């Protein structure tokens, strides 16, 4: 048997019991042909089935492929068609392989016309070179290359700025297919950016403009405010000048021994009213000065202890008059000697304690002085606590505003400037003034001031003013000629009288020109020079005099109602030696004479050397002397002082004259200065048994 025989033929033979070597009999042969024939038939059928299946399957696969492909292509086309960017693909040689509709618009040609061509077929050689260079850059780089370029569309001439990204593309085998380009129109974005920049610049301009406007407005406001302050200052100057005459002459009149008691009382009323008016004007002026920025704070060594004691002593009287207690609590570390502005600090204390006493009906006022604890920089802490009506929360800020007065009590007099001035002073001194208050319980005003302690030896002892009234010049002095330069008659008169009173020869010039003339002809030793005059003012006159022969020797003292301290420098600069402010106390004038010319005086009622002058009377001594008075006299005096009625007070004091002349004089002097508290204190020091 042929071993290569097909397994099926071998099986067919075997099944028929045939041998490959032996020809079959006819019947078997027929059977063999039959099975072989059957198999051929089966094989044909199988081949038919298979070929048919193959063809159908192949068709199905092709259809499926087409369907997939067209759906994929449609999707891809839709994507490329929808994208607003330009998309294209070039082979490494720069021949276009594909592009999207947006790109077609750029070249103004259909994709079929673009494919197979290069940039050189559509744009200028220069631009095509640029494109190719960019392509090469991307291919060499092996990654995306980005640039911005201005492109002009061929279809409608649109020109825009495009950001172009070129990326080399490789197939799966790593062969370079070409460069894929995507260009996006960034013109709008660029414009928006520029717009933004412009807007920003514009905004800056606007801000500058507004700022400039604001500065102008602020300057205008400041100018207006300054004008107001200057107006107030000038106004007060104008007020103070006549007041000077009123106070001066009324004072002088009071010295006339021939005055009846009634006349003297009337004069006192004039004097007190004038003084009160002066206080009001000074307050207004102070605020105006502060607002105008013309206040400078002194910083000299001072005795804070004495200051506090003085003020509280004075205020205690007032408190006791109202049945209030005034307590002073000084802590152990309380700095007795400090550097500061004594006058302003005194006013701050007077205002605060005075207010507390004024508004408190029962209970008392406590003044605490010490150093602020746990403080790096030393701060003086002053608290004034009262048991008054208190201040409602909504009013606590207002009380510091100018011209604000709280409460229904119309009898509370004042300008409403006290707290404003107080706070402004405290702030000028670098401190703070705070307020805590509970309506119905009371208020605490708290002053915190940066403080610098000094030694007691640093504090200049105040010059003890000469006691008594100046009666005239001490003998053995040269004759001093005095020239008064003043345009206002009242003030001419006052100064002239003051000079004549002590026996100094005096002449008057009504203006600067007369002054020059008189200086040349009369050669005065000292000139009282009014600052503000018509024609030639005091400054000009002084400058001229200084230029004349001998003009450097004469003493020139400005007499001014000006409120502003810095004008002092101005005046000294103009050649003046000194200045006296209106309204002046007579002693200021005499002291100035002494200062400038070395004039020495004798006093009409100068006490004996060992006698006690009122200025030197210690409160203890005064108290002792008062204690020696009869009880009835003491009570009368006390009641009169409490009533604050000057007539009553004067009467009571006059009664003392018959009993103790020296005490009478002292009391009179104190009363003249309205220092009723000192008298009251002394009276109460040695309270007799009742």
């Amino acid at each position, binding site marked *: 048997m042929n071993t290569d025989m097909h*397994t099926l033929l071998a*099986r067919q033979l075997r099944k028929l019991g045939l041998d490959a070597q032996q020809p079959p009999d006819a019947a078997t042969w027929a059977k063999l042909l039959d099975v072989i024939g059957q198999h051929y038939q089966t094989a044909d059928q199988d081949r038919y089935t*298979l070929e048919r299946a193959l063809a159908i399957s192949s068709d199905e696969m092709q259809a499926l492929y087409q369907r997939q492909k067209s759906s994929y292509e449609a999707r891809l086309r839709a994507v490329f068609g929808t994208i607003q960017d330009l998309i294209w693909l070039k082979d490494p040689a720069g021949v276009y392989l594909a592009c999207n509709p947006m790109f077609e618009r750029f070249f103004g040609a259909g994709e079929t016309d673009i494919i197979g061509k290069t940039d050189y077929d559509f744009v200028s050689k220069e631009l095509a070179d640029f494109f190719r260079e960019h392509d090469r850059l991307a291919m060499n780089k092996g990654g995306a290359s980005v640039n911005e370029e201005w492109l002009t569309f061929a279809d409608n001439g649109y020109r825009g700025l495009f950001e172009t990204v070129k990326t080399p593309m490789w197939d799966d085998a790593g062969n370079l297919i070409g460069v894929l380009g995507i260009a996006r129109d960034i013109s709008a974005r660029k414009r928006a950016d520029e717009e933004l920049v412009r807007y920003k610049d514009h905004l800056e301009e606007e801000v500058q403009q507004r700022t400039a406007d604001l500065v102008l407005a602020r300057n205008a406001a400041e100018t207006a405010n300054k004008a107001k302050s200057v107006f107030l200052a000038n106004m007060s100057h104008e007020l103070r000048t006549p007041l000077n005459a009123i106070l001066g002459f009324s004072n002088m009149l009071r010295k006339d021994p021939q005055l009846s008691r009634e006349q003297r009382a009337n004069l006192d009323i004039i004097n007190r009213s004038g003084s009160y008016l002066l206080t009001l004007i000074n307050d207004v002026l102070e605020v105006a000065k502060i607002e105008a920025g013309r206040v400078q704070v002194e910083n000299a060594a001072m005795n804070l202890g004495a200051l506090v004691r003085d003020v509280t002593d004075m205020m205690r009287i007032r408190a006791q008059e109202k049945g209030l207690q005034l307590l002073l609590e000084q802590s152990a570390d309380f700095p007795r000697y400090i550097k500061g502005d004594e006058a302003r600090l005194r006013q701050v204390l007077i205002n605060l304690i005075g207010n507390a006493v004024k508004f408190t009906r029962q209970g008392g006022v406590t003044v605490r002085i010490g150093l602020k604890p746990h403080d790096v920089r030393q701060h003086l802490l002053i608290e004034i606590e009262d048991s008054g009506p208190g201040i409602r929360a909504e009013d606590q800020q207002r009380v510091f505003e100018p011209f604000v007065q709280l409460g229904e009590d119309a009898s509370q007099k004042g300008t409403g400037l006290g707290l404003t001035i107080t706070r402004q002073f405290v702030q000028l001194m670098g401190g703070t003034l705070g307020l805590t208050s509970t309506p119905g319980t009371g208020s605490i005003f708290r002053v915190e001031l940066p403080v610098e302690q000094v030694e007691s030896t640093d504090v200049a002892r105040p010059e003890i003013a000469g006691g008594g009234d100046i009666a005239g010049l001490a003998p053995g002095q040269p004759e001093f000629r005095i020239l008064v330069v003043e345009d206002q008659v009242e003030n001419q008169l006052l100064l002239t009288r003051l000079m004549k009173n002590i026996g100094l020869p005096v002449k008057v010039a009504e203006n600067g020109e007369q002054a020059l003339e008189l200086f040349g002809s009369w050669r005065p030793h000292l000139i009282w020079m009014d600052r503000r005059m018509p024609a030639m003012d005091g400054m000009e006159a002084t400058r001229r005099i200084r230029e004349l022969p001998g003009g450097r020797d004469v003493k020139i003292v400005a007499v001014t109602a000006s409120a502003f301290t810095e004008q002092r420098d101005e005046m000294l600069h103009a050649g003046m030696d000194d200045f006296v402010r209106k309204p002046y106390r007579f002693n200021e004038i005499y002291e100035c004479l002494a200062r400038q010319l070395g004039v020495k005086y004798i006093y009409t009622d100068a006490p004996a050397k060992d006698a006690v002058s009122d200025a030197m009377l210690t409160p203890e001594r005064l108290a002792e002397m008062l204690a020696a008075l009869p009880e009835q006299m003491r009570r009368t005096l006390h009641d009169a002082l409490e009533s604050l009625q000057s007539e009553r007070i004067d009467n009571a004091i006059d009664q003392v004259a018959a009993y103790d002349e020296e005490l009478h004089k002292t009391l009179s002097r104190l009363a003249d200065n309205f220092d009723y508290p000192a008298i009251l204190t002394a009276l109460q020091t040695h309270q007799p048994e009742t």
Partner: protein
Amino acid sequence: MKLSTYRYLSSRGWDQPLNPSLDSVNTLLICFGASDADCIATGLADLRGAFPRSIWTGCSTAGEIYGRSLEDHSISVAVLKFSHTKLRVASCEITDPGTSLQAGEFLANTLAAPDLSGVFVLSDGLSVNGSELARGLSQKLPPGVRLSGGLAADGDRFKNTWLLVNRTPASHQVVAVGLYGDHVGIAQGSRGGWDVLGPEREVTRAEGNVLYALDGQPALALYKKYLGERAAGLPATGLLFPLAIRNVHTEDGLTVRTILAVNEADSSITFAGDIPQGGYVRLMHANLERLIDGAATAASQLSFTDGATGPLLTVAISCVGRRLVLSQRTEEEIDAVVDELPPGSQLIGYYSYGELAPLASGRCELHNQTMTLTSFWEK
């Protein structure tokens, strides 16, 4: 275990005398016969006389395998007398494929016992949903029980199949035999060897084992297009193009489905097992060499390491679709199986309308177009 195999040819009678000494309550008689029961009635009567006490199972076929040969109009019989293994048989009637799941569950529940080692199931080939039957059995049998078997066949006619119940052929039946104890050895192997053809298609409409539409087109029209003039031979010629179902678990590969019937009225095709709607299927076609290789592979999957030194029976259940395409070369796949089996072991089997065998994942599933082998021995 003692083992004898016999063949009865309607033309020639028994190939050797039946040995009644093997008859016992622990004897399993497996018998595959021509679907025309009348032509083998004498043979069956002989068996009933020789093995009255044995546990019987058997069914009609589309060709009986006996050793290396394939016959129609015959009976292939194996008689296994077990020494230590206990046997039980359970059966139930099935007239509606919709009750296949319940049938499987009932049989499993009936046979289930702690020492149950394996179940060999034979079912009606036409009135059953093999997938559901397999699912019912798998779900209710204890884990580790080896389940295999097949669907009865009716040649290439698809008209009527029978099962042996009470040693008598009966239609619309499912018969399951349980083998109990540690001494019984069971090995399984199954392989198709078909190639896929054409594009993957979505099952757009299917209900159970009835397929209506693929990719929105009538399924029957597709088959007719592929079959051309051979469509006249449906449903038998439908076996030329089985369907491969892509399983959810990729490790389970493809499950193959063969046509059992066609319905011209609604252009539907009934398969031996479920066609999942929404699933993906591909047509398959035969490559004769690969089918034969597949049979050999199925045999090589059998594992005899577990004490198979004595008598060993292998039951081959191969698909009628394979026989249709292999035609005169069908016995070549039987040769390929026998060549792989241990020398001296014996083989009977049949061509079926479906095979039950475990998937790689262990889940027992109905197969089509496979050569499915189950070996029995006793340790």
